[in-house]
């Protein structure tokens, strides 16, 4: 269970997240959507204890992220951010292996090796284990980071715009994978997404933010309605029902 209570953050006087209170289901897939600058990434950042909130609190699995010991928290919670730049030249196997760090402090056990292999397989990266990250395509690199985060084997997973820069096929594969992680592995995943159709297709729950506040918190079906969308995006968006799924169609 992820409990966000009245979280507020301002950068240099400008409010970015204001009074956000949420209860996110566990297990389950929640998508956070909204226009640019709504504060989605910042909220995720605060939830992952990468940034500190000015006020309010976030509890994940009963642990207060601001005060809990970081290494203990890392066994329950993992985050994947958009930018993944680093100086070290690593192979895929190295990177995925780092996902086990919160559990083994850097000393790999045989079980760790199995888990690493499993994560690599889950993300279809077999054969690329010994390639360096800078030799991979953008999509492959993204999958490698996803494998690392999965390898961390946490109950809670926070993904910040994981589909950025991925082509359609890889985007769908990633979302299917996330769905599998929730259904088969019982994880609770929170994903920040731009595409509302993708969000509606895969998420159990949608949270929409606008100008730092939560303006919608409910099921995907309820989210996909023209009046709701108009309120959030200030645009006319028609919603059509196709094959028992609601699909948003942008006005030309």
């Amino acid at each position, binding site marked *: 269970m992820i409990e966000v209570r009245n979280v507020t953050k301002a950068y240099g006087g400008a409010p970015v997240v204001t009074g956000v209170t949420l209860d996110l289901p566990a297990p389950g897939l929640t998508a956070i959507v909204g226009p640019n600058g709504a504060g989605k990434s910042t909220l995720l950042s605060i939830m992952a204890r*990468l940034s*500190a909130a000015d006020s309010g609190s976030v509890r994940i699995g009963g642990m207060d992220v601001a005060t809990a010991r970081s290494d203990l928290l890392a066994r329950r919670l993992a985050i994947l951010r958009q930018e993944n730049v680093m*100086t070290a030249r690593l192979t895929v196997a190295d990177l995925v292996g780092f996902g086990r*760090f919160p559990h083994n402090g850097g000393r790999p056990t045989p079980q760790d090796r199995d888990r690493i292999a499993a994560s690599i397989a889950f993300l279809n990266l077999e054969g690329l284990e010994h390639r360096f990250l800078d030799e991979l395509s953008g999509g492959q690199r993204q999958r490698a980071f996803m494998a690392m985060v999965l390898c961390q084997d946490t109950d809670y997973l926070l993904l910040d715009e994981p589909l950025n820069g991925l082509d359609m096929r890889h985007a769908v594969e990633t979302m299917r994978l996330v769905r599998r992680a929730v259904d088969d592995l019982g994880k609770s995943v929170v994903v920040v997404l731009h595409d509302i159709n993708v969000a509606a297709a895969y998420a159990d729950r949608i949270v929409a933010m606008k100008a730092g506040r939560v303006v919608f918190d409910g099921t995907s079906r309820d989210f996909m309605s023209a009046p709701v969308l108009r309120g959030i995006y200030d645009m006319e968006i028609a919603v059509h029902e196709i094959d028992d799924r609601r699909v948003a169609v942008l006005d030309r």
Partner: protein
Amino acid sequence: MADAALRPSARRGTVVLACLAAAAIGCAVLYMTIGVRGSWAFVLPFRAPKLAGMVVVAVAVAFSTVVFQTVTQNRILTPTIMGFDSLYVAIQTALVFGFGSRALATLDADWRFVGEASVMVCFSVVLFRWLLSEHGRGIHLLVLTGVVFGVLFRSLASLLQRVLDPNEFSALQDLLFASFNAIDAGLLGVTATAVGVCCAWLLSIHRTLDVLSLGRDAAIGLGVPHRRLVTRLLFVVAVLVSASTALVGPIAFFGLLVANLAYLAVGHRHRPALLASALIAVFTVVGGQVVLEHALKLDGVLGVVIEFVGGIVFIVLLMRGVHR
């Protein structure tokens, strides 16, 4: 992170380290024994402290640069660029200003070092806490601030010197290099201890340092207490830089050379990289001194040469676009 002993690259790393160790030891032996005229009983105690001093400085520079580069996520920066050396000089000048040079001379050299190093450590910790924002990129702001503080301290030191003694000014002082000839043997004990303790600690946390090189966000996500760790690391870097500055003076680019050579030789994992950089540093400094002193008969220019070579490395790195 598969089992290290099985991976071929890890085995190659061990072989490389062994070669480097042999080279370093070889140079040390050579330094102690080459061109001895007269009694050994005189030469050995004369050369031993100088060798010890060179080793301590080499190890301190190597370790502090590798760690600093991990913390700053950048391979072209070195800790002395942050003005630690000018802070050191400024503290010395300020102390003379405050207490008078005679009072200072009576203070034991060891305690003076401890005092100066403590001030430097406090300063670096304060600077870090004050400046480092939540985003890892704030580290560049931190370093640039450090550099400007460096200019500030150098100017302040110069100002104080002229106010103290307007007739006698050594404007030349800031221009000069590290001098390996005038190593203060009295400081060896305390600096060697400080450097030894710091390096031992750094080696003991090498796995955490590896995680740190993934960047701030990934490191926090994997459970590393980033802010606390980086504070401690900068603390240690400050101590290491104090030690090398106290022994020989400011060294800016040499660390670049040894750190990047180490990455080339053994990769980026910290245990091999730290060890390799230290060994390369010892080999370069001691070997260089042997060559300069005995083969080329150019005494006293070691500091200049290593800085120059390090500087070339810096420009090459910049040209190859290794920066962020």
